[in-house]
């Protein structure tokens, strides 16, 4: 794959021997959000790892998830560290809990993903709309012919649990 992919002044490096991420981003470029699913116990995990953290099985398959989830926590970056993000401030980084495998295998575990909360044009979602409990769905920001970044956008679905955002 052509390397590196430039995004917001960062060099994103996913070489051909990247046995964690290369295929993940190829799926993302085809607008599929995939996670690794254990061939033995069937549990899914993210980010990509090489053994099942619950049963140590080495076998796994890529499994496409719906990309629907709920904001579990978030932050609003006002002071960007990376130069390419300065023009994007304030921007939201969200911790999304996916609908699949919530509370498994123990009540506090879940498939959670970090991304930005963005509008359809991939600019940051307005801060007033960012809240724990709001429903989101994955969108894909194409960066190159072989790579896209999963991001999340708000949906119209009713929230899950208590909707909460940092008091003004």
């Amino acid at each position: 794959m052509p390397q590196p992919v430039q995004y917001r002044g960062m060099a994103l490096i996913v070489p051909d021997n990247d046995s964690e991420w290369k295929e993940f981003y190829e799926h993302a470029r085809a607008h599929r959000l995939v996670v690794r699913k254990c061939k033995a116990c069937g549990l899914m995990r993210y980010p990509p790892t090489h053994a099942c953290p619950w049963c140590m099985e080495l076998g796994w398959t890529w499994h496409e998830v719906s990309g629907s989830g709920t904001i579990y926590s978030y932050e609003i970056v006002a002071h960007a560290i990376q130069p390419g993000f300065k023009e994007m401030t304030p921007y939201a980084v969200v911790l999304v809990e996916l609908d699949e495998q919530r509370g498994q295998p123990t009540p506090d575990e879940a498939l959670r993903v970090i991304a930005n909360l963005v509008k359809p044009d991939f600019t940051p979602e307005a801060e007033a709309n960012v809240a724990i409990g709001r429903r989101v769905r994955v969108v894909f920001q194409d960066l190159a012919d072989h790579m896209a970044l999963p991001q999340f956008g708000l949906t119209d679905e009713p929230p899950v649990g208590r909707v909460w955002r940092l008091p003004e």
Partner: protein
Amino acid sequence: MVVQSRGLRDRYCIVGVGETEYSRASGRTTRAMAVEAIRKAILDAGLKAADVDGMLDYQGGDSTLANSVASDLGIRFNFYMDVMGGGSSTEALVGLAMGAIEAGMCNTVAIYRSMNGYSEFRIGGTGARAAQPVRGLDLAQVPYGMRSAGQNFAPTFMRHMYEYGTTSAQVAHVRVTHSKHASQNPKALLKQRVTVQDVLASRWIVKPLHLLDCCLETDNATCVIVTSAERARNLRHRPVYIMGVAGRVSKPRLDFHWAHGPISRVAGYYAKDIIFPQAGIGPEDVHVTGSYDAFTFTTMLQLEEYGFCKKGEGGAYVSSGIIELGGKRPNNTSGSHLCEGYTHGMSMVIENVRQLRGTVDDYCPRAAEGVHTYDYSPGRCRQVKDAEITMNLGWAMPATGSALIMRR
């Protein structure tokens, strides 16, 4: 998994401490600073260079290795190791030093950290670190503008606010308290006392963190020296005994700790079950705490997790006055990372050693002799009267932490 205590309580001591000036422009190398801090610690202990035969240091590609600083000082090693690591390494390396001595590898270990954390490699990530290529596990966060420590930790605090109703004003008291303590510390970079309103009115860095919720990037080097209790009894200061230590204890799924909640839980939840049985005490027996105040809220999370208050009540605890000088259990009496200067955890251990000796370097004219006024008004005393047991709460990130309990 239960970790079996090895019966080493009170068998090892910290006998020497030293540091350079805290500044924002050291104008010299990390090698030069390390040499100064180690030399001061050796002299503080009443040792000679030839008595130090072990060395441990930690860094993140931003410092000088042990081989050159030891040679500068004329030290020959029986044991040394350079460690990759940041916060929470201090306490972990104290434990490793005990292990190296216990194994018969060496007699006395100097542990140092040296960094131009503001003028060269900014700990907060601005500059060289922000420009590094992104690969491997970093791809899960960094492409989303989540690179600095504040950006990495903020969702933990946000979720704590959601779950427990913790407020910005409550944790602002940590800054207020540490600024009071720094006002009694001639070494501190920020000696000005601040108010809760000052914290809340400071600009946002990454919500829910204001500028004054964040610590202070600093140039400095620091050193502590560990040896056996038998050797310690013949040295310059009253021995400070190590009662227990826990090093780099982690939550599950350290690759991506967000996967394993509750995310408002931090590593001290696991470390407490190692260190308190070793020390044979509980949190109620601790007189002075030294939290890792990279941010205001990290102090709160650590104090909760080690049981100084109930989980979820940390906001009330840190805003109650308990953690102030003159309170029931003062925390970070030097002003530490938020106000004194950022040292990657070393300075809070140094401060507690001095507290236990009774010779905290405040403004009391005879502080070095252990004569203090216990007047905690600005520019006066910061010695805790009759401090007998201290506890350090090291932090690397929400999912990794260390701890150290010492007594006089």
